[in-house]
């Protein structure tokens, strides 16, 4: 698979005035052409920071290490002008809260027009026609009239569609969607997810979906990376990850989700809380919350390593043993369903 963006060993340290605190501990991730990749994890695990750092959006207080390659370009070495071409052009990003990403005092048409002027050099009538086409494309009815409206005149779901239209303005090769539906209602979420799915299939655009919602990621993506405390702790094809989760944290997250079908059961919660980035335990950062942790786990940080091929990587000293358990469980679930 040819990777369109490839992140290698990326680290991020934040300047706290008197010292640096490491928020990202060496992330390596490839996104293939047209691929949909999910990144899941709880708040503070570094899932958003990874992409903000790659696009140089973290500001001066962050020190970013490692490499981010897009074709032959190294994004971390680009100056502001070089980055400006990438952002919105090759890689577009949409965020959780559309109403705070849109400018409240400008009409929708002008905001989309700005993106078209910057990235495609379109002006005047051509820009307006293209803006209308984009609004049609993202499923906004009555597009010509909407161009003259302000963000507060549209609903949250509509505004998110406008954000997606703006992201599409630069005809990006990669769309990073950071919790794109978290602020929306379930029925509107279903609409936006359908739209994203359709767009990524049509345009051969790669989609990176950052979400805390395992359900959304399972629905949308081909491959998933699970993050915890600034590291990827497991990554695999989506089907494999959800049917045979190996890392105790992934397994814990899945067990902690209430179901909508099947018998009601007591939720299996993960004890404790996520440690703050400046107070990570030595060794595996999940060890204090993990039922399987032993002395070895508390002493050394396990590497992300493949188990049983097919691109299933896990960072756990007990991976082999847990993989066997996962296989057995998957088989018995399969039996139950049959």
């Amino acid at each position, binding site marked *: 698979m040819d990777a369109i963006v490839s992140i290698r060993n990326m680290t991020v340290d934040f300047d706290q005035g008197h010292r640096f605190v490491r928020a990202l501990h060496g992330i390596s991730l490839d996104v293939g052409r047209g691929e949909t990749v999910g990144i899941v994890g709880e708040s503070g695990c570094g899932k958003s920071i990874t992409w903000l750092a790659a696009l140089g959006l973290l500001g001066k207080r962050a020190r970013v290490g490692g490499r981010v390659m897009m074709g032959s370009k190294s994004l971390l070495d680009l100056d502001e002008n070089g980055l400006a071409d990438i952002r919105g052009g090759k890689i577009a990003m949409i965020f959780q809260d559309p109403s705070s990403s849109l400018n409240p005092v400008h009409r929708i048409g002008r905001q989309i027009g700005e993106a078209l002027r910057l990235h495609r050099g379109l002006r005047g009538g051509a820009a307006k026609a293209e803006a209308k086409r984009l609004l049609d494309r993202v499923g906004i009815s009555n597009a010509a009239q909407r161009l003259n409206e302000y963000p507060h005149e549209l609903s949250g779901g509509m505004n998110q569609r406008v954000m997606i239209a703006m992201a599409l303005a630069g005809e990006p090769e990669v769309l990073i969607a950071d919790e794109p539906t978290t602020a929306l209602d379930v029925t509107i979420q279903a609409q936006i997810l359908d739209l994203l799915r359709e767009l990524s299939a049509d345009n051969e655009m790669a989609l990176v979906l950052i979400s805390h919602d395992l359900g959304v990621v399972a629905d949308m993506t081909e491959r998933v990376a699970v993050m915890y405390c600034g590291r990827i702790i497991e990554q695999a094809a989506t089907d494999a990850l959800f049917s045979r989760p190996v890392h105790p944290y992934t397994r814990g997250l899945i067990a902690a989700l209430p179901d909508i079908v099947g018998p*009601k059961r007591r939720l299996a919660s993960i004890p404790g809380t996520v440690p703050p980035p400046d107070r990570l335990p030595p060794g595996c950062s999940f060890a204090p919350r993990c039922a399987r942790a032993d002395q070895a786990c508390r002493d050394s940080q396990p590497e992300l390593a493949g188990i049983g091929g097919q691109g299933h990587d896990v960072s756990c000293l007990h991976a082999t043993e847990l993989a066997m358990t996962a296989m057995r469980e998957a088989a018995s679930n399969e039996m139950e369903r049959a």
Partner: protein
Amino acid sequence: MNAADKPLLSVTNLKRHYDVRLPGGLFGTPATLKAVDGISFEIMKGKTLGLVGESGCGKSTTAKLVLGHIPVTAGEIRFDGETVTANHNAQWRAMRRRMQMIYQDPLGALDRRLSVADQIGEPIQIHAPETPKAERDERVASLMANVGLRRDMADRFPHELSGGQRQRVVIARALSLKPDLLVGDEPVSALDVSIQAQVLNLLDDLRQSTGFTALFISHDLKVVRQMSDRVAVMYLGRIVESGAPEEVFRRPQHPYTQALVSAIPTIRRSAVSNRIVLKGDPPNPVNAPSGCPFHTRCPAAIAQCKSEVPALLETAGHKVACHLVNNAPAGAGIAAE
């Protein structure tokens, strides 16, 4: 014990309308926003009713009405036989200490300048000032233990706690007066998955040990199913379907509930194939459609839906407000399983 057969809370034909002004004319045109438009439900002692619906459907307004925070436009709320009013007099205050609330955002619900122990002890100080300090401290310590807060956290301030710990403080404070009714408005929506499970289990345990009755409001159907004995689905100020969660979520009858259930993303892939995606946004409650409020988005709407408001009719404990379901010959629901 026959106390269990009596409803602790019963709400009859509850309405809350707001006068608003729409753009147009020099001072705008007056209009009525029907936030809650004629809902009725009962919660039996020791049971939990889950209220689900999307933003703006009136579920939080219902919570405020039930607690007497805002006056009703029409209808009646009875708590343990007495009418709940929004006159904040001695009678209301006596009632209010038996009804407590948990909000979505724990940081907003806590006083940033009070330590954890003071936060939890404050309701006791206000509602039972005669309690000696030693006894109050003891109650606070036992509440902290019950919600899983360590003793050494007593002197900490809200900003020093994690989101899950803050929500535990809010829960401990709500339980400090041993309330009969607990109203939770999205109590776990701001929490991460692993912490959410901890708090849901905690609420479940506390309910078993203290036996409180609960009104549990959430937009998350999975969470509501986990917590409730009965659920009611709201749409634009009305209850469109109610019943046991197994029944309502497994065999939803109302087209809105069907869409809602099918739209939940799950980690089981099969759900994608038969997803119902509704067109458009929920209508603005200020000019709610005539007839069935859902007919503008309903894939199965018929002419009758535009003119007549469907009644919430019951078959075997499962209530549905839909002409298509209610017109259908008995036993033949419009939905296949």
